[in-house]
């Protein structure tokens, strides 16, 4: 999958005639690619545009600009160009997992209906085959097939996320966008779900775009990590490299904010204040209002996302990434 120059602006309307006064630039020109079988992590604070990007990719939002090319049986198809009708057949190649396991399952449907609905929509198999597959999948995600006639409210948070996973897997997708699938769960259950997602990836050769705000969780799930801030990608690097050798001040700040799990420890606070208003991003570098290393150049010129010479597939958007000596995770 290849994403190029993707932008998503939400109009801000005001006044009696709902005139569009400005745009909320949630995703403001991002480029990246995901290879088959690869798992890519996407991190950033709330308001950095991670979820919007994830939703644009599965076309739950119409993108404003740019292209999303998806390899379907050897053909690169631009998802932003295809019609709604064609989209329906393409949709079965990708699925999404949501953060809120309470609102993403219809409370009036039984598990069997929730899990078989995607197959019914894509006209896969007969009713009986669909139910058999649902039972089989439920067992493979660690649910009991006997629970198939229960309603979502009869399950715990972790079990609900498993139902969400079963639903996503039912149509055999190649690619799943996981939008913070574990942030609402307890630590012990989090570990269960993360392990399950890793196992399923090997079993079904899936690609993931794994969205999270916690760099600790992402490490487990990803081969590569994309760091996003205010609608822009600020750094891309392999998941080993990014913790040992961060190149962007924002990545450094996120690493410093990971808790150390020691008695009497404290965390360094490297970013001051809040994320700026995305409808009116700062001039120059997006981070300049909060960056500890800010210089005059950062306030005027927008840094490009440039490749790192010594590392393949690593990119950073900072004017001074060569000069800065940033702290790694300790």
């Amino acid at each position, binding site marked *: 999958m290849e994403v190029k120059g993707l932008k998503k602006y939400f109009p801000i309307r005001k006044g009696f005639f709902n005139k569009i006064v400005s745009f909320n630039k949630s995703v403001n020109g991002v480029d990246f690619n995901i290879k088959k079988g690869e798992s890519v992590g996407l991190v950033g*604070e*709330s308001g950095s545009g991670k979820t919007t990007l994830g939703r644009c990719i599965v076309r739950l939002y119409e993108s404003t600009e740019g292209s999303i090319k998806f390899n379907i049986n050897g053909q690169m198809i631009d998802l932003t160009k295809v019609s709604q009708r064609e989209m329906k057949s393409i949709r079965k190649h990708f699925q999404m997992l949501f953060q809120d396991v309470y609102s993403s399952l219809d409370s009036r449907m039984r598990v069997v209906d929730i899990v078989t609905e995607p197959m019914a929509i894509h006209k896969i198999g007969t009713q009986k085959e669909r139910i058999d597959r649902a039972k089989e999948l439920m067992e493979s995600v660690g649910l009991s097939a006997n629970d198939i006639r229960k309603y979502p409210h009869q399950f*715990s*948070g*972790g*079990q609900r996320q498993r139902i969400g996973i079963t639903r996503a897997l039912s149509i055999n997708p190649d690619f799943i966008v996981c939008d913070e699938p574990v942030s609402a769960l*307890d*630590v*012990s*259950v*989090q*570990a*269960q779900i*993360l*392990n399950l997602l*890793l196992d399923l990836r090997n079993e079904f050769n899936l690609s993931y775009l794994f969205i999270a*705000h*916690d*760099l*600790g*969780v992402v*490490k*487990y799930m990803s081969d590569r990590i994309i760091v996003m801030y205010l609608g822009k990608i600020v750094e891309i690097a392999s998941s080993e490299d990014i*913790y040992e050798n961060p190149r962007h001040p924002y990545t450094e*700040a*996120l690493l*410093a*904010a*990971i*808790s*150390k*799990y*020691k*008695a*009497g*420890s*404290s*965390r*360094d*606070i490297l*970013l001051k204040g*809040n*994320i700026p208003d995305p409808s009116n991003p700062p001039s120059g570098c997006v981070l300049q209002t909060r960056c500890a290393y800010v210089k005059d150049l950062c306030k005027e010129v927008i840094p490009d996302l440039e490749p790192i010479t010594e590392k393949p597939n690593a990119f950073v958007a900072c004017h001074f990434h060569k000069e800065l000596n940033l702290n790694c*995770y300790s």
Partner: protein
Amino acid sequence: MEENNVLVDVRDLAVYFHIEQGIVKAVDGVNFKIEKGKSLGVVGESGCGKTITALSLLLLHPQPEGRIEKGNIFFYSDSGDRIDIAKLGINSKQIRQRRGNDIAMIFQEPMMSLNPVLNIGQQLMETIRLHQKVDKKTANKIAVEALERVRISAPERRMKEYPFQLSGGMRQRVMIAIALSCNPKLLIADEPTTALDVTIEAEILKLITDLQKELGMSMMMITHDLGVIGEMTDDVVVMYVGKIVEKASTKRLFDEPLHPYTKALFKSRPEIRTQGRLSSIKGSVPNPYMQPKGCSFEPRCEVAMDICKKKAPGFFDLGEHLVSCWKYSDGEGL
């Protein structure tokens, strides 16, 4: 522990919920003390009774289905008198004087706990004027100071803003400002940073620690995140299904966790340096209506023995480190 240093002494507290399906023992025989100026962490998964324990200190547990079955909550006032909160009526004058004034609470979801149709100033001044006999002008001054204390810039302007105009971190700061406006002796923080980003979380935790030292108050920190416990607390209790399973100083617990549940909690967090699969606790917190007869952790425990199924363990003291697990019994109580 010197007796006169204790602020809150909870003894054998039990809160049961009487509902149609039966009795849920949300809190079942809990003992702990909070010393003056110290902070106590309460850690456990959701559904372990952490929040109910905290709410019962203010008699704010859900009523009428939730009832304090037994036990005492002794609160020591400055003069050295002690009152038993558990014996007070839920709307009595005495408990209303404690709430907000002596014991204040901040909650997980700052958007839910602020009133959306009142501005920040009105909400702050409401608390101040309820507990202190001051006129509007003085209350306004105290409110501005309270906002300054939580490091909100331009407090006069913020006083006129509404909750929806503030970011998540800002709202939590306002909550802290309201909680601290009457200089409470105990601050109960119920997962104050769970809904926030990691970067903001670090800032808010630092703010709470700084203010705790500055005002010399005690704190009860409820969280499921052991990282937060490590940073914020002096002592810690680990709760599982309404019971305390381990109790120690934070340093000791982090150096050497004893209970299998505590060990499992430590192991299941994602660690950056280690490779491979995460270890998880099998299963989930048991159904509250059908609790195991023996140790409540037995069905999920990896080192369970025969005795664990039959009899619930008492506390074994390993020198200022209490643990409720048969593994540490040394034959005692079997």
